[in-house]
């Protein structure tokens, strides 16, 4: 009974959040129900209910993980937790945050995300700036070279062998150097740079500025929206990537990113790994490998979920920018 009430409460909460209670939304609701045929009204109502359902389906799995991660693991095993924490505890998080391996993996992930994103954006932008000059010597050759890479690639094994021969395996640089450049991003940069008026550059040239100076002092500051977009895409990719850690980090476990660490406990069912590495006395009887896994999931996702609402408008713009042909 309590659960049903909680469910109703949450749905009501959801409605308020998503419908909004501003003046404008009240006006829109009024507008929607006046001057309309019955069929149209039914369509609107069904549509709204459907959208609320989608909303629920999107949010509930995330919510479920969140509440379970704050619940005592042994209590959670009995089941029956749907809407709210039953036996609140921070033990899961204490264990996760005091785990040295997770801490190391977290540092690796932050480092690769920051360094990888910065180098990717600056490197790709620099080349894109150069290639955006229509009369650049050999422009056609450089462009053709890039376009071919969009359709053909060597595939997993030749790439692996190359990295091995370059001594990139078990090195931090494997995260940075092979991901420094992307031709897709170059095209997005290029179309943005084209929109910057030439007169700005001409004025700077008259004042004696060289190309690199123009790029650094004029083009980059003017390109903040596109730089932010590509940086966000790249940052999310770096943060979420586990595969490079699985495949290229073979011996030096200290270099694995947090998603790889999580992958190892989630998929390779080595869930005891996290517990085995605990310092004595930290582990409580109430936590289980399952509840620790959930807390780890929350910890790895939190940074993205926290920045996401602030940055999502850039993502959408960037997505559209990327969809422009050529």
């Amino acid at each position, binding site marked *: 009974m309590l659960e049903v009430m909680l469910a109703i409460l949450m749905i009501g909460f959801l409605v308020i959040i998503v419908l909004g209670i501003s003046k404008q939304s009240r006006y829109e609701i009024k507008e929607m129900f006046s001057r309309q045929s019955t069929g149209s009204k039914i369509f609107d109502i069904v549509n709204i209910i459907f959208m609320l359902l989608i909303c629920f389906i999107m949010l509930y799995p995330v919510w479920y993980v969140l509440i379970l991660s704050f619940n005592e693991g042994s209590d959670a095993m009995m089941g029956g937790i749907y809407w709210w924490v039953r036996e609140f505890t921070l033990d899961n998080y204490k264990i996760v945050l005091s785990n040295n391996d997770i801490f190391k993996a977290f540092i690796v992930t932050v480092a690769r995300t920051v360094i990888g994103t910065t180098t990717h954006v600056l490197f790709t932008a620099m080349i894109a700036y150069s290639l955006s000059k229509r009369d650049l010597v050999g422009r056609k050759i*450089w462009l053709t070279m890039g376009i071919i890479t969009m359709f053909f690639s060597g595939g997993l094994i030749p790439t692996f062998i190359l990295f091995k021969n370059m001594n990139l395996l078990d090195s931090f640089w494997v995260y940075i150097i092979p991901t420094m*450049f992307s031709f897709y991003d170059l095209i997005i940069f290029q179309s943005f740079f084209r929109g910057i008026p030439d007169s700005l550059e001409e004025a700077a040239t008259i004042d004696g500025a060289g*190309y690199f100076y123009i790029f650094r002092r004029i083009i980059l500051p003017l390109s903040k929206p596109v730089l932010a977009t590509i940086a966000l895409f790249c940052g999310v990719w770096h943060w979420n990537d586990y595969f490079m850690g699985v495949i290229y980090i073979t011996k030096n476990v200290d270099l694995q990113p947090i998603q790889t660490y999580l992958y190892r406990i989630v998929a390779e069912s080595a869930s005891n790994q996290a517990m085995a590495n605990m310092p004595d006395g930290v582990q409580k009887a109430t936590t289980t490998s399952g509840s620790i896994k959930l807390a780890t999931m929350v910890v790895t996702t939190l940074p993205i979920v926290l920045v996401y609402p602030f940055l999502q408008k850039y993502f959408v713009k960037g997505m559209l920018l990327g969809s422009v042909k050529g």
Partner: protein
Amino acid sequence: MTNTNILKKIKVQRTLLLMVLPGVLWMIIFNYLPMYGIIIAFKEFKIYQSMFEAPWVGFYHFIEFFKDEDFFLVMKNTLGMSFLKLLIGFPLPIAFAVLLNELKLSRFKKNIQTISYLPHFLSWVVLGGIMITWTSEAGLVNEVLLGIGIIQKPIAFLGDPKYFWGIAIASDIWKEIGWNAIIYLAAIAAIDVSMYEAAVIDGANRFQKIKYITLPSIAPTIAMLFILAVSGVLNSNFDQVFVLNNPLNSNASEVLDLYVYRTGIRAARYSYATAIGLFKSVVAFALLFTANKVTRRLTGNSLF
């Protein structure tokens, strides 16, 4: 252009050329060297020798793969899952975008959109973790199904090949439906409003407006994305399968990319795995051209 002119130009543009150079070198090393490395598909390559030294074996590895009993299983899983994803997962974002566009509450519309692409930003590992938690024998799905009385005893969903495709397809749609809808929403937003106004004057109802204005207007976008989706049918979402597969469901989860990883990286059969990778690229390329041609003939829209 004469040679002296080019030299003069190179001198003027030397900074620009120096700025392109690192990119060209990067592409040669990280894109073109691996392409060259494909030749080991036709050789018997061992990791301790160089690619030149390895003896040629022609199409031996390809034939080996086609003869292998895994070939049928791998192709069935890859194509089966991909086609179902295409069949179910491709139209859903379009429907979602159209319905979202019909919402007249601007704030609500914006919030729903934000929420709908939240899962896109979760990693497949976290998502796989959620899936594994939910579908385990003590998980939520079993709890609910037992509670309603649909099943009598808990099912280990990921331990049974029978359920794998369903879980993979459903989780994929869940993750990407909102994100994939963005591009359609943009296309819908670009439609001239006066077309709708004219239709209303002609007495069109909402379904007619969708059918005769919205859908035809976004048809080029649909065609473009469809071609791309078809050319990717052999990709079968590696990240997802990699996380969700286990020895119990491998009958339904063993796909091409996973097979390349297993034989190539794990078992170190480099030449064999490269051959399979090359086979995949060739088929994907053929599919891209075929889909492009068919779509152009049917709808008049094409990618190139």
